[in-house]
Every structure is written in C-alpha cells, then in structure tokens.
C-alpha cells in the first residue's frame, strides 16, 4: 500500500483527520486510566478476608438495658451457649468487630515499651477460645486461647493482655526472622508486654479506608469479653445450613432474653452481605468507570463512522477515477483502512503521552498507583481495532463505487 497518496489526500482534509486523531488520543487517555481504576478496585475487592465466608454470619446485638455490666457479661455467656446448641450452628463467639466491618479498634504496636512512634498499627478483635473456629480461621503456629484465659472487661478499661494471637502478616512484619510464638510485643499503653501464643493464617483487618492499605492484614486477637452497650456475635453455620442458622439464631437469642435490640433490617448479616457493604464504593467506582469507557468507545466509533462516511461521499468521483484506471475493490478498501490506521497510530501515540500525564497528575493529586504499560497497550490495541471496525462499513461502501462514477458530474 502506498502511503504517499494517502498523505497527499489527507492534506486536503487536515482538520477532520486531526479531530479524529485527537478524539482517539483523548479516548485512549481516559480509557487507560479508567481500566486501571477498574482493575485496582477489582484487585481490592478480591482480596481474601481469611474468614470462611460461605458459612459465617454476624449478629449485631444492642442491649436494651445497659444498667449493669455484670448482667451483660452473664447474658453474653448464656447467649453463646444457646447459639452453640443450635443444630444448624457449628460455633459462635462474641466480638467487638470483625474483618471488613469498617468500625472497630485499632491499636499501635510497639516492640519496646519506651518506643515513641509505633512500629505498625493493627486491628484488635476481642475474642474467646471459640473465635478462631467461629470465623473459620486456622492457626498456623502456636496454640489457641483456653477458656480460663478469657477475661471480661469494659470498653475503656486499661487492662493488660498477657496472651495474644496475631495474624500471619503481622507476625511476618514484626518478626521477619521467623517464629513469632513466645515473643512479646506491646499493644496496650500500659507498658505491660503481651506474649504471642499463636499465629493465624491470613486474617484481614476491620479497617476499610484506602489509607490503611499497609495495615490491611494486621490483626490481633485478645482473650477479652467486651462489656458494653453492644456486642457482635460471629456465628459459623454447619455446611449448607447458613440460611437455617441465620433464621434460628435471632430466635434463640430472643428466647434467652427480650431486652435486646437486633435490627430487623441489617441486624443479622451474612458475610456475603458484609463484603458487599464493605466494598460498595469499589464496586460502584468499577461499574461507573465501565459505563464511561463503554460510552466513550461507542461515541468514538460512531464519530469515525460518521466522518469516514462523509469522506467517502465527498470522494466518490475520485474513487470512480481510480477504479476506472485499474484499481481493484481491495485497493480502495485498503486505502481507507490504511488511512484510518495512520490516523489511529498518531492518535494512540499522543494518547499514550496524555494517559501517562493524567496518571502522573492523579498520582500526586489522589495518591493513586502508577499506571502499568499493559493498560496503555491494551487500550491502544482496543482503539486501533475499534477504528478499523468502525471504518469497515464506509470503506466497503467506497469499494463498491463503480468505475462509471468517474464520468458523472458531482
């Protein structure tokens, strides 16, 4: 295919070619970044929580009578026994928060008592000897709590935590050398050390903010039963019995005592619902970027079809002359395809620069990650193919212009 005549012809419709090229460049720049955002969100959403999600659900229980913390402690004990006795329930535990919950406690973690700045930050889950089983999390080292290690405490009490279990990722961060079991760290401000007695497999933090990314898998389990105005029950159903357990559990609790408030709407949530709520923003952003990308591609394709149709209409006579002089239909077809490809490649080159520029700006403005070149390449290929596809129909129409057109006046 000869490039020269195409360039010569393009000189006669510079503005149109420039506009198409510019449109392709802008589309590419936006789509790369949109794809990148989509991918980042999907990666975030797909992170494992460590929880046996298909079988676990959570009950938010508020106490109607908060006058005595002693009775609350006894009531939690009775509730847990009632829950564990249900045929559909494998195990149950009380806690202040759980992975993906958003709200909860996080404590600074220090290696020495006199350290001013923290080593890292971690979720604190108030647990008992049933928590690991109720979440469906396995220990990879050390041992679980025993029933008599569990102490009852009020929210604001500054008790020390002599024994704790930490998540795998926190263990790796604090003790890169290896075995964390038996070591001590400082997680309360009382300056008393806590001994790590066990390490769990992957366990996600409750923190969902973007800026807690580096703490996302830091979790500490402490053997404390929380005495406060609310409690969460984490319940693990027997295989295949999630729905039954979710129905039975609130009934069993109300049979225990009516002086409690379990929201009929979202007081009982399966872990799938917890996950959906936790990642609501990410799903939303991914869908929104998807819609924008689809609309952009559609509009760019339609624009190329429109302009090329116009060019074909404008050049019917020239096409006729070329055909009369011996050009085949394929020649005419490939003329328009090549023309589009040339504009497309220029647009893609400019668009790549633009995409990288936008990304660099977003990195500084919104603390986003750097765009990887795969996205630019993917988007570039999509756009070039889209251009070829869009130009095909008008180009085919051009190739069907009969040679006799040469003799007709415009």
């Amino acid at each position, binding site marked *: 295919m000869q490039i020269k005549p195409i360039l010569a012809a393009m000189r006669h419709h510079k*503005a*149109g070619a420039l*506009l*198409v090229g*510019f*449109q392709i460049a*802008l*589309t590419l*720049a*936006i789509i790369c*970044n949109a794809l990148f*955002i989509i991918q980042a969100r999907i990666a975030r959403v797909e992170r494992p929580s460590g929880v046996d999600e298909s079988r676990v659900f959570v009950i938010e229980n*508020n106490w*109607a*009578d*908060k*006058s005595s913390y002693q009775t609350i402690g006894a009531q939690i004990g009775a509730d847990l026994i009632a829950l564990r006795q249900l045929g559909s329930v494998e195990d149950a535990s009380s806690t202040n928060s759980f992975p993906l919950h958003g709200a909860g406690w996080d404590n600074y973690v220090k290696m020495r008592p006199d350290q*001013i*700045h*923290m080593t890292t*930050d971690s979720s604190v889950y108030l647990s008992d000897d049933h928590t690991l089983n109720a979440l469906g999390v396995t220990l990879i080292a050390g041992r679980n709590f025993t029933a008599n290690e569990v102490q009852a*405490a*009020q*929210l*604001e*009490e*500054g008790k020390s935590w002599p024994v704790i279990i930490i998540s795998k990722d926190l263990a790796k961060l604090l003790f890169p050398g290896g075995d964390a079991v038996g070591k001590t760290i400082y997680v*309360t*401000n*009382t300056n008393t050390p806590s001994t790590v007695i066990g390490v769990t497999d992957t366990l996600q933090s409750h923190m969902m903010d*973007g*800026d807690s990314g*580096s703490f996302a898998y830091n979790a500490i389990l402490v053997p404390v039963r929380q005495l*406060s*105005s609310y409690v969460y029950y984490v319940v693990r159903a027997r295989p295949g019995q999630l729905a039954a357990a979710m129905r039975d559990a609130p009934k069993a609790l109300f049979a225990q005592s009516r*002086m409690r*408030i379990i*929201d009929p709407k979202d007081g009982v949530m399966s872990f799938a619902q917890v996950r959906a709520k936790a990642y609501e*923003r990410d799903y*939303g*952003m991914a*869908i*929104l970027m998807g*819609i*924008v990308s689809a*609309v*952009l591609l559609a*509009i*760019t394709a*339609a*624009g190329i079809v*429109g*302009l090329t149709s*116009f*060019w074909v*209409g*404008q050049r019917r006579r020239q096409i006729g002359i070329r055909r009369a002089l011996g050009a085949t239909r394929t020649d005419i077809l490939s003329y328009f395809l090549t023309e589009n490809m040339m504009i497309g490649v220029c647009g893609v080159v400019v668009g790549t620069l633009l995409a990288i520029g936008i990304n660099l700006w977003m990195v500084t403005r*919104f603390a986003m990650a750097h765009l990887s070149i795969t996205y630019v390449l993917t988007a570039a290929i999509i756009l070039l193919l889209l251009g070829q596809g869009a130009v095909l129909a008008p180009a085919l129409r051009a190739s069907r212009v009969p040679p006799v057109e040469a003799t007709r*006046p*415009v």
Partner: protein
Amino acid sequence: MLGYYVDLAIRSLKRSPGLTLLMILAVGFGVAASMTTYSVFRAVSGDPIPWKSSQLYVPQIEMWGPKGHGGDGDNGDPPDAMDYTDAIALMRDHRAKYQSAMYMISPSLVPAQAGKHPINVGGHAVYNEFFPMTDAPFQYGSGWSAAEDEQRAAVAVISDKINQKLFGGANSVGKTINVDSKDYRVVGVLKPWNPQPRFYDVSNTGGFTTNDEDLFIPFLRGIDVGMANSGNTNCVETPTQSGFKGLQESSCIWMSYMVQLDDASAAKAYKSYLDGYAQEQQHAGRFSWAPNNRLRNLPQWLDAEHVVPTDTEISLLVAIGLLVVCLVNTAGLLLAKFLRRSNEIGVRRALGAPRAAIYAQFLVEAAMVGFSGGVLGLLLTGIGIHSVSWVLPKDIASLARLDRPLLLLTLLVAVVATVLAGVYPTFRAARVQPAWQLKSN
C-alpha cells in the same frame, strides 16, 4: 433573520438524520454523564449551612504532644477531636458567642405502649447553645435553658421521626419518654433535619452518614448518668481508671466541639484565648510542649477533614473528559456536515450574504444540535441521578438531586459546549470561496 436560520437548520438537519442523531446522542450522553457526576459532587462539596458557615469554628487543641505525631500523613495538626478535660474547661470559660461540646450517644428508647419493642436511637449529648448555633429547626417547643444544663435536667429534644413513632406526630412537648430506663421530659421536637455533611460532628461521622439524629440530651446529664459514648474514642495512653469515669479523666479524645464567632476580630480573640489556655496548661505542667492550636471555620474544617470523597472527584473528572471527547466528536461531525454544503454556502455568498450571515446560520445550527442534545441529556441526567444509588454508596447517592439550577445548567452546558464545538467548523464554512465553488460546478 433568526427564524430563517432556524428553518434552514431544521432542513439541513433533516437531510442527514443519521449524522444529526449521532451528534445529538454524543452531546446528550456527554452532558448527562458529566451532569450526573456533577450533581453528586455538588451534593458532597456543598455547604451544609451556607448562611453562617463562616461564623462557625472548630477549635483544635494539642493535648497529646509529640506522642500524637509521627506516622503516615502527619501534618502537624493537633488531634481533630477533644478530650473531656479541655472540652469542659473551654465550656466553663465560655468565650464564644455560642459553643457546645458534644458526644455521640446511642441509648435505647422504650416505648410506653406495652408490647412494643425497645428501639435503639442515635443522637448527641450537647449544651443548650448547640440549637441556636446550628440553627436546628424546631417544630414544637425549643431547646433547653442554660440553667437546665447546669441542673443536669432530664430533658430531651427529639426528632420528627421519633415524634411520629412515639406520639403520632402530635405536639409532644411536656410528655415523657423513657431513655435507657430513665424518664426524660420532651422540651422540643425538631422538624425533619438531616444536614449533610453532618458539620457539627465530622470527626465521628466522617461527614456523610445515613444514621439518624433522633435524640439530643443535655451534655452534663449524659455524663452524670454515664450514658456511654457511641462515637470514636482515640487514646495515646490507656486511662488509669476503668469505665466511663476513667475515660473522662484520660487524655483520650471522643468529643466534638464547635463555637460561633460572629466576625474576624472575634475569631482572632478566640484563637489568642486558645493559645493562652494552652500556655496556662503548659505552665501548670499538664502540657510539656508549646501551644499548637488551630481554629478553622467550617469550610476550612470540612476541607481539612477531607469530607469530599476522592472517588467523587475522580468520577467528575472522568465525566468531564467524556464530555470533551463528545464535543471533539461533534466538532468533527459538524465540520463534515458544514463542508458538505460548500455549494450552498458558495451560492449564498455569491448572492451577497456577508461572512457574518454564514456565521450566524451555522452557529444557529450548532446551537440547535446543542439544545436537542441538552434535552436528551436532561432526560438521561434524570435517569442517571435516579440510578446513581446503584453504583454509589447510599449516604452519598441519596443527596444527588435534579433541581432547577441543575436543569438550567444542563441545557446551558449542552448549548454553549456545542456552539463552541461548532466555532471551528463554522469558521471553515465561512471561508468557502464563492467563485471556486460556483466554478467547480
């Protein structure tokens, strides 16, 4: 003349319906996407109390010292909430026109009628000046008095929703409600009031929240009966005593604090009072560091607390990008459309039409495309705003509205943007040489 151009434009647009439709669709989608995201952006970056936001200030005191600093994202600001000791001290000094310390409560309300279940309500324990300061709208009654604050009176202001639920919407002032097993006298019922962002307690709500504010009780009453804080508690040291009492004596932060200062000189005086207070604490040995306080007015405070979600900003930018692409697309199509009519332009010019007439004719045509695109965009924006709750979290999506200003803005953006896109094609059309066009035929 304008009528003639409109007529010409309609004829021309009818001649190539496919191209016209394409342009209208492009403008419509572009405008709708940017207006939908703009409506969300407008909702979250809006001023919740525009008539006095510049008079409302949030004081911040450095009560943690170096312990509270370091770590990621530390910008040297003092903590964004208040501990009990300092909040009470500032309340006692009472240096602003209005001021209130406040903390979040979530007590249970036991309905008087037998057989009804207790319900959990959300609210705040506040001082009496909270109501005039925030301009909380009353349906019945009013807030309580300063004396009732001092007496730790068992009084309450309830929301319209709770009033509907407990009293069927009747004037319930003077009636009794049961909060955490204790009786409170209702002194006021608010009108439906749901300021977003929740400007008086950003540190607990993060700005936007779907939680209701059902109940307000006197601050000191809440402290007296030990009504627990249901908001965040942040500590750098563990309280030496246990329970709610221990929390009050600790340096843990769990309260919001807001003051009203009517002018700049009052704000300046208040800031120097804060610094004086911190110096006093330093002399007394409670703080071992120099004063480091902030006094931000509400807009500055919302900005400092990053109330506008980043996602919203990114979506708006992406949508504006989409609009730009749509306009470049329209510019290309208009160019094709206008230049196809070189003959017609040649004839008009040869018959004496000045360049200005050509400009007017084609810009009218562009404006008509823009207007049609705007109408379509309006329709799509309406659909977009209704379905935005599908992709965005409820607390934010529910704030987006299609009101008259947005309606007008949508049409305006569509017309202005399309006319701008039509400027270059029109310029090219007006430069058509009449002689050359006539000759080539």
